[in-house]
C-alpha cells in the first residue's frame, strides 16, 4: 500500500463507536473546520475487496455486462479496541470512479490528482488478453482502484472532500449529488481552456521545467513499458521451449534401460521449469502497473502546469487591458494621440469633441480603470495563491514519486533474484537426475 500520512501536529476528531448519523454529523463538522492536513486514513480503513459482473441497460437502452467493485470502509478505532465489526460496503463501477476523478480535477485544479488504472489493457505482451473481462485484468484493476482511493484518502486536501466521502459511504444518490454541484459546467470550460492555444509572457519557470519533465517522463516510461512487454514475450518463449525437453526425455527414457529413470525425472524438472514462467510474468505485471501509474500521473502534472499558464495568462490579459485603458485616459487628457487609433482618426476628420463629451468619456474610463485595477489585484492574488498551493502539492508529489519508484525498483530486483534462484534450483535438480543416469 502506498499510503501517506500528513504532518503530526493535527487535531484528529476522536471517534469511538459511530452510528451513521453521527458520521454524517461529523462530516459537516469537518467541512466547517477545514482541517487541511487530516488524513482520512487515520479515521477509516478503505479497501476495494471484490469484483462482480452485473448486467443492465446502458444509456441507449441496450443490454450490457459490466463489472462492479466492492468498496469497504470501517472506522480505524473499532479494530484497535479488539472488536472487528463488519465493514460497511457498497458497489461502484469504473465509470463512477471516473466521475469522481473528473469532479476532483475541476474542483481542485492546484492538486496533482492521482490517476485511475487503465480502462482497457494497453501495452500487453501476448499472453495477457486485452479483454476487459479477463479475470487477471479485473484483479489488477481492483488493486489499482484500491490504490487510487488510498491515494485520495491520504492526500491532505482531497481527503476532506465531501463528495469523496459520500462516494465511499453512500451508494444511492451519489451521482445526482455530484451533478448538483454544477461541476459539469466548470468541467466544460476547463476542457476548452486546456485545449486553447495561448501564449504566456511570464510563466513561473518552475512550471515550465515541470512541464518539460513530465513530457520526458511520459516518453521514457512509455518506451520502457513497451520494451519490457517485448522482453517478457521473449522470456516466455525461452522458458516454454524447454518444456519440449520434458516430452522428448520421457519418450527417450522408454527405449533406455540404465538411463531411463534419470531421463524421466529430468524431464519432469524441465516441465516444471517451463511452467514456472507463468507466475513469474504475472508478478512482473505488478511492476508494470506501478510504472503505469506514474505514466498516467504525468497527465495530471501537465494539467496543473496548464492551469498555472491559464491563470497567468488571465492576469497578463487583465494587466494588458488595464494598461491600455490608462493609456487611453492619458491620450484623452493630454489631447495627444501617441499611437494610431480609430478615435484619433475620426476626431481629426470630424473635429474635436466637445468638452462635455470628453468629460463623460473620461469618467467612464476612470471607472473602468478602477475596475481594472481591482481585477488585476484579484488575478494577482489568485495566481499567487495558485502557485503557492500548487507548488506545495508538487513538492509533495515529487517526494512520493521518488519513494514509490525506488520501492518499485527494489521489488523488481527482488523478483529477478527470486527468478534466478528458482532457475538455479531447477537446473540443479535436473543435473542431479542426469548424474544418476
Amino acid at each position: 500500500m502506498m499510503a501517506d500520512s500528513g504532518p503530526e501536529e493535527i487535531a484528529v476528531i476522536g471517534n469511538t463507536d459511530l452510528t451513521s448519523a453521527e458520521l454524517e454529523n461529523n462530516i459537516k463538522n469537518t467541512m466547517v473546520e477545514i482541517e487541511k492536513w487530516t488524513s482520512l486514513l487515520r479515521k477509516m480503513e478503505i479497501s476495494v475487496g471484490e469484483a462482480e459482473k452485473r448486467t443492465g441497460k446502458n444509456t441507449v437502452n441496450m443490454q450490457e455486462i459490466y463489472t462492479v467493485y466492492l468498496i469497504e470502509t470501517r472506522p480505524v478505532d473499532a479494530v484497535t479496541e479488539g472488536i472487528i465489526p463488519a465493514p460497511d460496503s457498497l458497489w461502484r463501477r469504473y465509470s463512477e470512479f471516473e466521475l469522481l476523478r473528473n469532479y476532483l480535477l475541476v474542483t481542485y485544479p492546484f492538486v496533482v490528482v492521482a490517476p485511475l488504472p487503465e480502462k482497457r489493457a494497453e501495452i500487453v505482451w501476448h499472453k495477457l488478453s486485452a479483454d476487459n473481462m479477463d479475470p487477471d485484468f479485473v484483479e489488477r484493476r481492483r488493486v489499482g482502484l484500491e490504490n487510487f482511493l488510498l491515494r485520495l484518502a491520504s492526500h491532505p486536501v482531497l481527503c476532506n472532500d465531501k463528495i469523496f466521502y459520500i462516494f465511499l459511504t453512500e451508494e444511492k444518490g451519489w451521482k445526482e449529488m455530484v451533478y448538483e454541484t454544477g461541476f459539469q459546467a466548470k468541467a466544460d470550460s476547463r476542457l476548452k481552456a486546456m485545449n486553447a492555444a495561448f501564449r504566456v509572457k511570464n510563466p513561473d519557470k518552475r512550471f515550465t521545467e515541470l512541464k518539460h519533465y513530465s513530457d520526458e517522463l511520459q516518453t521514457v516510461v512509455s518506451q520502457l513499458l513497451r520494451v519490457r512487454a517485448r522482453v517478457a514475450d521473449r522470456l516466455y518463449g525461452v522458458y516454454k521451449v524447454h518444456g519440449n525437453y520434458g516430452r522428448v526425455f520421457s519418450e527417450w527414457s522408454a527405449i533406455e534401460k540404465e538411463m531411463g529413470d534419470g531421463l524421466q525425472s529430468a524431464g519432469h524438472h524441465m516441465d516444471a521449469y517451463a511452467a514456472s514462467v507463468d507466475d513469474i510474468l504475472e508478478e512482473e505485471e505488478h511492476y508494470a502497473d506501478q510504472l503505469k501509474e506514474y505514466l498516467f500521473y504525468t497527465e495530471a502534472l501537465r494539467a496543473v502546469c496548464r492551469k498555472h499558464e491559464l491563470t497567468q495568462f488571465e492576469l497578463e490579459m487583465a494587466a494588458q487591458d488595464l494598461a491600455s485603458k490608462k493609456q487611453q485616459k492619458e491620450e484623452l487628457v493630454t489631447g495627444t494621440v501617441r499611437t494610431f487609433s480609430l478615435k484619433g482618426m475620426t476626431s481629426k476628420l470630424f473635429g474635436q469633441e466637445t468638452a462635455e463629451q470628453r468629460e463623460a468619456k473620461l469618467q467612464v474610463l476612470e471607472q473602468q480603470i478602477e475596475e481594472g485595477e481591482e481585477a488585476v489585484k484579484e488575478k494577482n492574488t489568485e495566481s499567487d495563491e495558485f502557485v503557492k498551493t500548487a507548488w506545495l502539492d508538487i513538492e509533495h508529489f515529487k517526494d512520493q514519486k521518488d519513494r514509490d519508484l525506488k520501492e518499485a525498483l527494489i521489488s523488481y530486483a527482488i523478483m529477478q533474484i527470486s527468478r534466478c534462484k528458482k532457475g538455479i534450483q531447477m537446473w540443479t535438480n535436473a543435473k542431479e537426475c542426469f548424474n544418476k543416469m
Partner: protein
Amino acid sequence: MSACTPKSLASSGQKPIQEMCHPLGAEEAVLTPSPDVRNITSSIGEKDQILPNGTPVETSSPSSSSSLLNRLQLDDDLDGETRDLFVTVDDPKKHVSTMETYITYRVVTKTTRVEFDLPEYTVRRRYQDFDWLRTKLEDSQPTHLIPPLPEKFVMKGVVDRFSEEFVETRRKALDKFLKRVADHPVLSFNEHLNSFLSAKDLNKRQGLALLSKMGESVKYVTGGYKLRGRPVEFSAMGDYLDMFTQKLGTIDRIAQRIIKEQSEYLAELKEYGPVYTTWAASEAELQGPLEGVASCMANCSIALDELTQDMSGDFLPVLREYVLYIESMKAVLKKRDNVQAEYEAKLEAAALRKEERPTAKVPTDVEKCQDRVECFNADLKSDWDQWQNNKTQDFRQLLTGMADHNIQYYEKCLAAWESVIPVLQDKQPQETETEED
C-alpha cells in the same frame, strides 16, 4: 567480448588453444610448453584458468568445479581398470604453403605398453591422417565398430574452415575419436594406430595405404548375398538405433530453437537496459538507482550471450557427432548381416550337394564362414556393450554440461541483481569495499 563473427586462427606460433591435460599428464612436468600460456578469455572453448602444469584453477563457482570433475571423468573406465595408453589431440596450427593451406593438430601419447618403443610421443597430424587411420582400422578390423570422424567436407562458402570456432569443434571431435580408439580393447593394439601415434612422417605409409586400399572390408560390404532374417538381438539393436536417431534429431531441433529464442530475448534485453539510462538522465534522486538497474541488465546480457555461445559450441556439435556414431554402428550391423547371409547361402549350397553325394564332407569354406559369423557376432556384441556404456557416459556428461551452463548463467545474473540492491536502497557500500562492483 562476444565472438559474433568467428575469428580466424592465427598462423603457426601464435595463440595456441590449450587442451586440458590427462590425469597422467598432470603428474609429470609439461613436455613442450607453448610460449604463451595465458588465461584464455575467449568466449569459445574452456573458460577456466589453467596453470602451467596443466591443472585447471578452480574458480569460485561451485558448479564449475563439479563440471571440472565431469571433464576429468571423461576417460574413466566404469570398471576402474588401469589404463596404459593416453592420447590427446590439441594445439591446432595453420600451415600455409604454395599449394594449400591446412590445419595440423598435435597428438600426444603417453603409454607404458611394450608395443610402443618409447613411453611418450608427440607428433603433428592433419585431418587427412585421421581419415587414413580410420580407413585402415575399418579395413583391418572389419568386425569392430570404428568410432566416427567429424564431417570431412564443409561447404566453402558457408563455413569458415579456419575460424577458431570451427577448428576447436573439429579438434574436440578428433580428440574424442582418438580416445575412443585408444580405449577399445582390440583397436588400441592395431599396428596402424601405433604408426599414427608414433611415426614422424606418415606420408610413405600413406602411399602404401593407397595401393592396398582394396582391403578386406570390401568383402564384407559387397557380399551380394541376401539375408533371411536378422537374429532377434541384432534386430533389437537396429530398432534401438533407429529410435535413438529420431530422439537425437528432436533434441537437436529443440536445442537450436532454444538458442534462437535466447538470441531474440538477448536482442530485446540489450534495448531494455539503455532505456533506464535515458530515464536516469532526467531524474535526481532516482538517477543512481536507475543507472544501477541499467548496468545490472548489461551484465545479465553478457551472461546470456555466454550461455548461448556455450550451448552452440559445446552442446550441438557433440549431439550431431553422435548421429555419425550411430551411422557407423548401423554400417557394422549391415556388414554382419552380409557375413551371415554368405554363410547361410554357402550352407544351403553344401546341403544340396550333400543330398547328391552323402559321403562328402562339409567343405572347409563353409566352416570358415561359420567361424566368421560367430566371431563377428561376438565382437559386435562386446562392442555394442561398450558402445552403450560410452553412450551413457557421454550423454551424462553432455546433459550435466548443459545444466551447468544454465546454472552458471543464473548465478551470474543473481550476483548482478544482488549487488544492485544496496544501490537501490541507497546504502553506499562502494566507498568502503573495493572488491566487486
